[in-house]
């Protein structure tokens, strides 16, 4: 099932994100997703996230699909050139994966193989364009595909709380030009900023899913503020996390913060995308608190 159909039906689409293991046994990823994420619409599978080498996104997507979930294949341009990316897309379609999220990807220097060659032959925009070409039955070299063409729900990302939001909006527009059909955002901790962003982004007419991270502790919040682009946790949230260490440790404060953001932003967006970062077990509670 392509998730664009649900957006078209006016459904508030909930997705969450899981990362494949650094190893060959993905059973715990699948088990956790089955237990905590089967109630939501779809599950993103990251592609060597943060440039840290792991099992590929596609095999993990297939495992989740076999377990009855709807996977979204994340595809970055960091590790593959246009030939490998197109080849991966054909393979995904052949295996029944029809939801994708196209990203440029973090730089190799950010990960656990900093000496690796960064590829970036394509970027998120030209990758989306490439997908549209394949859907027309032609590859990027202009050669015809044999047989049925693939069809995907084509997603992209945008960073609404970035301090260079104009450049982000310009890029978003290019992604729409290139064929993006829905957007998932970087984690939002400032509802006001997100709402202002949506005021400008709604002109593109594409569904946007609010990105949510459950803050685990004051330390994690401070770390993100210092190191993660486009993420800013306001001081009062950090104080709330620091005030009651027991509640924060149990996840209650973080879940409450995330639920509040979802409630405030819900009227302005078309779905929510949860980056649980290992706290998948808290997702059902979060959704209940947020009233979804």
């Amino acid at each position, binding site marked *: 099932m392509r998730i664009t159909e649900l957006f078209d039906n006016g459904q508030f689409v909930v997705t969450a994100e899981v990362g494949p293991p650094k190893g060959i046994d993905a059973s715990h990823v699948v088990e956790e997703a089955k237990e905590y994420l089967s109630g939501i619409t779809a599950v993103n599978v990251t592609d060597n996230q943060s440039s840290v080498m792991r099992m590929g996104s596609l095999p993990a997507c297939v495992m989740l699909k076999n377990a009855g979930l709807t996977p979204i294949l994340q595809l970055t341009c960091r590790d593959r050139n246009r030939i490998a990316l197109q080849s991966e897309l054909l393979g995904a379609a052949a295996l029944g994966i029809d939801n994708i999220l196209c990203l*440029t990807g*973090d730089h190799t220097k950010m990960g656990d193989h900093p000496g690796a060659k960064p590829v970036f032959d394509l*970027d998120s925009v030209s990758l989306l364009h490439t997908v549209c070409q394949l859907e027309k039955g032609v590859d990027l070299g202009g050669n015809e595909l044999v047989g049925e063409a693939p069809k995907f729900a084509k997603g992209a990302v945008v960073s609404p709380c970035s*301090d*260079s939001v104009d450049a*982000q909006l310009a890029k978003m527009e290019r992604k729409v030009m290139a064929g993006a059909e829905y957007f998932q955002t970087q984690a939002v901790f400032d509802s006001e900023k997100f709402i202002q962003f949506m005021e400008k982004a709604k002109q593109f007419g594409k569904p946007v899913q609010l990105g949510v991270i459950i803050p685990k502790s004051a330390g994690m919040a401070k770390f993100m503020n210092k190191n993660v*682009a*486009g993420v800013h946790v306001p001081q009062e949230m950090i104080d709330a996390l620091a005030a009651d260490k027991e509640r924060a440790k149990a996840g209650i404060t973080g879940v409450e913060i995330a639920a509040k953001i979802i409630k405030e932003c819900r009227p302005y967006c078309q779905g929510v995308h949860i980056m649980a970062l290992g706290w998948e077990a808290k997702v059902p509670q979060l959704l209940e608190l947020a009233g979804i």
Partner: protein
Amino acid sequence: MLITELKAKETIASQLGSKVFVIFCHGCKEIRFPEKEADDLLEELTAAGKVTGSITTDYICDPDQLKLRLEKFAAAIEGADTILVASCGVGVQTVASMFESKKVVAACDTYALPGFQGVTPLEHDCKQCGECYLNLTGGICPLTACSKSLVNGQCGGCKDGKCEVDPGMECGWERIQKRLAQIGRLDALKAPIQIRNYATDVNI
């Protein structure tokens, strides 16, 4: 070593305003400059009544020297809305950063040739990619100013205006965004989708 080749006439024409000041750089001795084609172009533009002035010089990558040489053309430059620069990518970037309120148009694509490159510019860098993007980016090279050499806009990694890869470096696409806003050329961000052609890039 490098070679510059004039872009297609239509490509150049589509970038020009109504009044143009022209700068040709015959460059360092390692460079091949398309002299004849450039002269033809200048002739055509002059015949069309578009040219407010022109200079043929060398080493425009040296901003101090260039400033001195352009002094006597101040009125002609003032009267132009566009400055057309036929030089390598470094030269165009030098001019673009000197005239921040004018539209500076690159007339050439810069290709690499194996061997020694004559100048080592401090501020601007050109990878000699063979399909110059400066006309889409307000004269800031996206290949050298962006850590990922992105040609379709900013990635999600810009924090406090700095690049995720090197916090000591300003994000190239943040600079491009600001420059385009400053020169009233934000429409350049709606240009067709760009896909690099590595066949023109002999560095690969």
